[in-house]
């Protein structure tokens, strides 16, 4: 008797990914990001940081809601920032994000991403859980929170190990510069960092 449910679960686990990828647009977004990341990892050092950034940039633009992520990272004071500075913050945040991915995903040694077929939904957002499988190291859980914008499901937060939120980390990271020097100081900081990273 116990064999039956177990077998059913096993079959579902095998069959579900294909099904879910076809049906859930949030999974499709993550799949395209992961494909892009594998591509720049394979391009590796030969492509150079700039080459990888040029490749992953458009992928990030499609997968992430960069303007919303910028607003979330800045927090409520966003509304008191001048429109020109808001624009500059968004483009600095984008530059930073691209530089981060291009800098960190710089080589390939058999890694792969596994996307969990089950998608959690709550309050208009979706959560897609993935695992970065590394044959030479530990697997890393990476989860993505997505929100619909203009008909597309876009990433608004990334969680490492299911507990470390990128937005929460960025809020901490930005708070001091914002409270001391305002938006302009933060823009200058971000652009300097991105330039140093070769973005």
């Amino acid at each position, binding site marked *: 008797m116990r064999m039956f449910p177990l077998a059913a679960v096993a079959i579902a686990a095998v069959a579900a990914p294909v099904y879910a990828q076809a049906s859930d647009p949030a999974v499709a977004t993550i799949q395209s990001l992961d494909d892009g990341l594998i591509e720049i990892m394979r391009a590796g050092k030969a492509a150079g940081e700039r080459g990888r950034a040029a490749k992953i940039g458009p992928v990030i633009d499609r997968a992430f809601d960069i303007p*919303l992520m910028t607003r979330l990272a800045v927090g*409520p004071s966003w509304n008191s920032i001048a429109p020109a500075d808001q624009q500059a913050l968004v483009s600095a945040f984008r530059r930073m994000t691209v530089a981060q991915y291009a800098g960190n995903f710089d080589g390939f040694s058999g890694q792969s991403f596994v996307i969990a077929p*089950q998608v*959690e939904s709550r309050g208009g957002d979706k959560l897609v859980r993935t695992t970065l499988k590394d044959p*030479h190291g530990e697997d890393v859980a990476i989860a993505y929170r997505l929100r619909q914008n203009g008909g597309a499901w876009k990433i608004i937060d990334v969680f490492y190990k299911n507990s470390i939120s990128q937005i929460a980390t960025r809020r901490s990271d930005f708070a001091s510069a914002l409270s001391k020097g305002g938006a302009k100081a933060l823009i200058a900081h971000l652009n300097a960092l991105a330039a140093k990273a070769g973005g």
Partner: protein
Amino acid sequence: MTLPAIVPALLLIAAPDPAPPVVSLASLVVPSAVLADGSTIELQTLPPPLPAEDSDEATAVAPPPEGTQSVTVAAERPRHDVGDPLQPFNRAMFGAHEAFDKAVLRPAAMGYKHVVPKPARSAIRNVLSNLTEPIVFLNDLLQLKPGRAIKTFGRFVFNSTLGLGGVLDIAKLPGLKLPHHDNSFGDTLAYYGVGPGPYLFLPFVGPTDLRDFLASQPENLVLPLAVGHPFDQAKYQVPKAVIGGLDQRAEADQDLQALFSTAVDPYATLRSVYLQNRIGEVQALKHGTAKVTISPLDTSLSDPLSNPLADPAASPPKSQPSPPELDDPLTDPATGK
């Protein structure tokens, strides 16, 4: 019994498994280091995520707790940084540690990595890690987890004998499936509900909190007191502290660079990552990795644009967001969409 240099916090940490060679994801490893009687340092990496030993592996996805969405209209966080009342002190210590790291620790660690072949470094790391298993075992017992304790015991026995005194980590191989897991007195206190207390950054200790720092002190005495020779000898403790510290600093280097190279405020970034990671570890300890009860969706992320409370007219710009990483990383003072 001679207990020469009481080397604080040296014997407690399990060395992490070799870092992934290529993909360095920022925020996975957090540095720490220990000053031993004024001259010795050790840098620790944060424990790797607990192995999902009881989970169904690929399908270890938490089912969404039904109807538990905690999207409430959150009040503005207090101005001071949550969980970091000692920030001025901590920032000063962070500055001192970074200066020392840049001038001495990192160059020495890179030199160690360059000079000592990889197999030798792994062997040393495995031996030091194996010596922490008795403390893991003790904490498994204190948390009344006999299954885990037996696994830890088995792991220690296999690696100490067939693994040639811990040189080879044979216990984690597929046949035995007894991978290392971290478990400290700080974990045990957290397991029984003791809060972290204020965040601390201490030179040569790194990011910690009051609970974990105090709890780590007795752990240094377990082997010297229980076994004695040679663990209570300076000729063991000092080289162990130096080599272990250099190795862990070298192993953490990629992750640290990834974390700091894109940080506007490295101090705050490290604090945020450390505190969030520690919360995740304690949650996993309490509830198991198979069913993480806190879903990342349980925090509201409200767009400031659609947030009337954040309107400058309604809420003066003085109420800046503070790093709210402690209990609710993502809640904006917001309507919760």
